[in-house]
């Protein structure tokens, strides 16, 4: 049980052997946030069913194997779990020292996407195809490294006890740190990810205790930026169309409005309990594009109904609720900022993803955390869970 040894964090109690150590009152296993972990696992499990339902008949993409996507989704979840365990084992504080390195790698990766190595999917040039059916979406990892990087900068002086709040210089540095990858991602252009990052930055600043002026300024800058983007025609046609279809859902139901329209029909037809897993006609009929990834929620809506869709929202709520608690309960600002950044990320991305299938948000290419098919996203969210667990595990026993 050498592995078990690694799980016990030194300095938290007398050394014990084997299972006893794992399940001891002060052991890591006991200190993990199980509700969050179980909720996240449940989401991934539901996700695998939905992904399977959405892809088992799509011969044109599943290469004739109905389990193609299911197997990969389960594999991704497994890798994600391993990453989470690794993160907990290393501990967020150990990782804190590696943040500059991780940040640098992630920025390099997104720069790679802009080179001919990257490839374009659905208008966004945000993938690195690795071959063998695998591909990487580095913008997912950037979300983590931005949180870690900003937290490191903002919390450094405060956690050292020098100041109660980060000063303006630190905030400026942190914003600069976030701005670099955001600009690159915007060039891809992956507008959805940029929006998530903006919200992450907002969450991080809020949790850091930075002056209200910064928070309000950032919100103002966001609004101004949005107006500028619109006015200066920086957006591509497909992006404008998505907004147009959002503003007017009945617009061209066979063209730009097709996606949202079919998604809403799929969800709406689910009713209270849905058509039953694998029995959704919209799903089996492949009326909703991108249904295993960005529109995975429509499968739940149609086949599992209000009950299933509601369960997903509740489970996401459990994950975020626990993350909020972790943010509030940890005594070091670094942990608080990381947790709050993750909450902001999960919350906005979930809201945007589900919201666009429900027609209350414009369509962007964002996956639903834990549920959507996609390795990079899956790895990123499980690493985030690992960070949250580590913050909880490593907080002082406040008995």
């Amino acid at each position, binding site marked *: 049980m050498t592995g078990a040894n690694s799980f016990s964090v030194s*300095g938290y109690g007398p050394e014990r052997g084997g299972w006893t150590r794992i399940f001891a009152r002060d052991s890591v296993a006991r200190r993990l946030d199980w509700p969050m972990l179980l909720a996240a696992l449940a989401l991934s499990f539901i996700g695998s069913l939905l992904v399977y339902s959405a892809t088992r*008949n799509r011969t044109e993409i599943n290469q004739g194997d109905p389990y193609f996507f299911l197997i990969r989704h389960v594999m991704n979840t497994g890798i994600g779990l391993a990453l989470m365990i690794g993160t907990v084992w290393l501990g967020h504080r150990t990782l804190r020292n590696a943040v500059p390195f991780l940040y640098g790698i992630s920025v390099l990766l997104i720069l790679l996407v802009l080179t001919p190595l990257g490839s374009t999917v659905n208008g966004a040039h945000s993938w690195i195809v690795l071959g063998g059916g695998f591909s990487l979406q580095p913008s997912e990892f950037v979300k983590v490294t931005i949180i870690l990087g900003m937290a490191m900068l903002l919390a450094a002086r*405060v*956690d*050292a*006890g020098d100041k*109660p*709040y980060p000063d303006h210089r630190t905030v400026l540095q942190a914003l600069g740190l976030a701005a670099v990858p955001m600009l690159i991602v915007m060039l891809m252009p992956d507008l959805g990810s940029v929006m998530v990052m903006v919200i992450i930055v907002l969450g991080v600043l*809020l*949790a*850091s*205790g930075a002056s209200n002026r910064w928070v309000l300024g950032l919100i103002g800058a966001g609004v101004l930026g949005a107006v500028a983007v619109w006015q200066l025609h920086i957006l591509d046609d497909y992006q404008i169309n998505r907004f147009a279809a959002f503003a007017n859902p009945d617009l061209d139901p066979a063209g730009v409005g097709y996606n949202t329209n*079919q998604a*809403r*029909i*799929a*969800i*709406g*037809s*689910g*009713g*209270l309990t849905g058509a039953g897993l694998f029995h959704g*006609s*919209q799903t*089996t*009929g*492949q*009326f909703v594009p991108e249904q295993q990834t960005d529109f995975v929620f429509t499968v739940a*809506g*149609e086949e599992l*109904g*209000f009950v299933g*869709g*509601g369960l997903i*929202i509740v489970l*996401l*709520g459990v994950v*975020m*609720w626990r993350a*909020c608690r972790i*943010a*509030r309960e940890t*005594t*070091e*600002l670094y942990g*608080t900022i990381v947790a*709050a950044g993750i*909450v*902001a990320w999960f*919350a*906005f991305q*979930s*809201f945007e993803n*589900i*919201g666009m299938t*429900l*027609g*209350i948000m414009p369509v962007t290419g964002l996956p639903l955390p834990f549920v959507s098919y996609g390795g990079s996203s899956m790895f990123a969210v499980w690493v985030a869970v690992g960070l949250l667990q580590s913050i909880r595990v*490593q907080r*002082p026993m406040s008995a």
Partner: protein
Amino acid sequence: MTNIPETGRTPRVQIRLVVIQILVLSLLGTLGGRLWYLQIREGAEYAKQASGNHVQQVVQPAVRGSILDARGVPLADNETRLVVSASRTELLKQKDDGKAVLTKLAGVLGMDPQEVMLKVRLCDAKTPQPCWNGSPYQPIPITDEATPKQALQIRERSEDFPGITAEPEAVRRYASPGKSNTAQVLGYLSPVTDEEIQQAKDSDSPYLRSDQVGRSGLERQYDKVLRGKAGVTRYEVDNLGRVIGQAKADPAQPGANLVTSIDARVQRVAEYELDQAMKEARRQFDKITGSYYKADSGAVVVMEAKTGRIVAMASAPTYDPNVWVGGISSKDYAKLTGKDSNYPLLNRAIQGQAAPGSTFKVVSTAAAVEAGYDFDGRYPCTSSYSVGGQVFNNFEGENFGPISLGRALEVSCDTVFYGLAHNEWKKDGGINPKKGQPKDYFFKAAHQFGLGKETGVDLPNEVTGRVPDRAWKQSFWEANKDYWCKTGKKDGDYVEKIAYENCLEGNKMRAGDEINYSIGQGDTLVTPIQEAVIYGALANGGTMHAPTIGKAIISADGKTVTEIKPKVTGKLPISQATLKGMDEALAGVVTRGTAAWKFGGWPQDKIELHAKTGTAEVYGKQTTSWLATYSKDYTVIMTIAQAGTGSGASGEAVRNIYSALYGVQPDGSIDNKKALLPQPQKGLPKVRTDGTVASPKISKDPAKDLRDMQKAAEEGTSTSQDGTLPGATTPTSTAGNRDTRRRQRRRGGRRRLT
């Protein structure tokens, strides 16, 4: 851990964290609310949209029910043809979109591969025929004339013919049992129109584009019950139209069978006799017009007197209803509806109308009795009757002296009715009656006898005929006076003079109008079916029925039998005493009156026949002949246009129909074994456990049987088993034997009256 200072939470961060938490919760709450709105509140609407998205219907036609005669003999049923069809969805799954399979199929069927390809392509605005204009999910018929061998080839090598089926399919057939034709009564089917498809689209029995709908006759009247309910299979398709599953299948429910009161044998006899009578009439010379009779159309109705059920109904000219099966060619259609066709599609028994001639006198007699004239009184039957300088002659100027109303019917004395009608006209106020003064007994009676309106027979598009009463005259005058006043001349030719008179007083009931009317001439129009109702009522004691052909509807499984009951529509306005008097008088018509020369040797003591002849004048044409008859059980009405007198044209034919019904031999003896229907068919045919209706064997040609029987009897007694001597003293009437007929006329019928 101890190296990390216990700074604690600053209130600012703590508050902000709570704010974040609340924000997160409200976002999730928003999602939940929206989800509830879409799925629970608007769910039904989206479910509808979703099903419209991905469900395609394939309709299986229901087998149309049969139309059977009273004994269960099918008049219209279905024959099985082998239909080879191709499924587009299956073909499109193949690599070359099924080209190879279709080419192979064309080889088996002996068709041009190109033609087969064209047949399975879908129609659109730019595609010329041939193309498939039905649902792309519906199997597309390639041919409905495959031989069993071809079908076997296809079915045995089904792996070579993916998407191709060879299935037996029901196609309408008008069986003509015993050579009966029944065309106009049965009606016909023709393809459904776009409009009808649209209308029935959302109903529970949608039409197929290849569907046939009843257009006339029983096929139309009972279309709903005969049609059954098409089966609908709903297939789920994906967004590319590929079938991904079968959602719901309602099997086709075959249509119910309609049992009619028609007896195919009697029908055949009636048709044959009508045809023979018309042929015979065309050999007769008409002295008035100086040409042979045209006898261009006719009708005969055989009805059960006590119930109004139709036993036979024929209309001439006729046609073969099978021309409609499988789509009528434009050439055939022109033959049936063109200007020179003489409109064989018309059922002249219910759609042909003519002045009734003397057959109307039963109405006038009833009117006279109603007006207070004694049935047994004495009325002068002079050779002519003059009113204001206008002379109305009795037929061929005969004079019988004072006679009763009964005798007047018997000998068909016109002048008796002239006198009565003129009298009533005067009592009603003459040419300018006061308002409310006219009693109009003669017109009222006609309405009470059911004239001027439909009888309610269960056939579509029955015409009403016409009673030329004051109201009609007024409206007719209003509609035509401009034309009359423009063309009318006081000193012009006949037409111009009439127009002139009509212009002046066409809205008024003139003496001549009422006098003409009283003997069924002039503007009065009746249909054969109306006559059948009147004479049927005289036979049964005064009850008028809405004639019915449908007798029962038997569901395809034979489990539900819905009887169609006879419908009483009214009572004749005649007392039982008058009825008895008229009954006797009409019997007298057969024994010593206007029809006697055709009914010599009839066993009147066993089967009492009653008759009234009629000859209606039609301006510019030869006279229309009427013969209205009844026995205790049946009433037989025959009319032939442009054929002379009622007895002359139809006497033999009607007699033959009665002979066939009752099995009367030429010598007057009755052979019950040969009788087709000595009593009206009471019960319904037997239904077997599998739902089919048992039907007896039917002779190849009942009309020929009758002729054979008559011929055998005429050739001598050698064939007569019981050795009864035929009534040798009474020559029999045999069609085509004009000598016999002449002789008979001289002996049996002293006078030829109408």
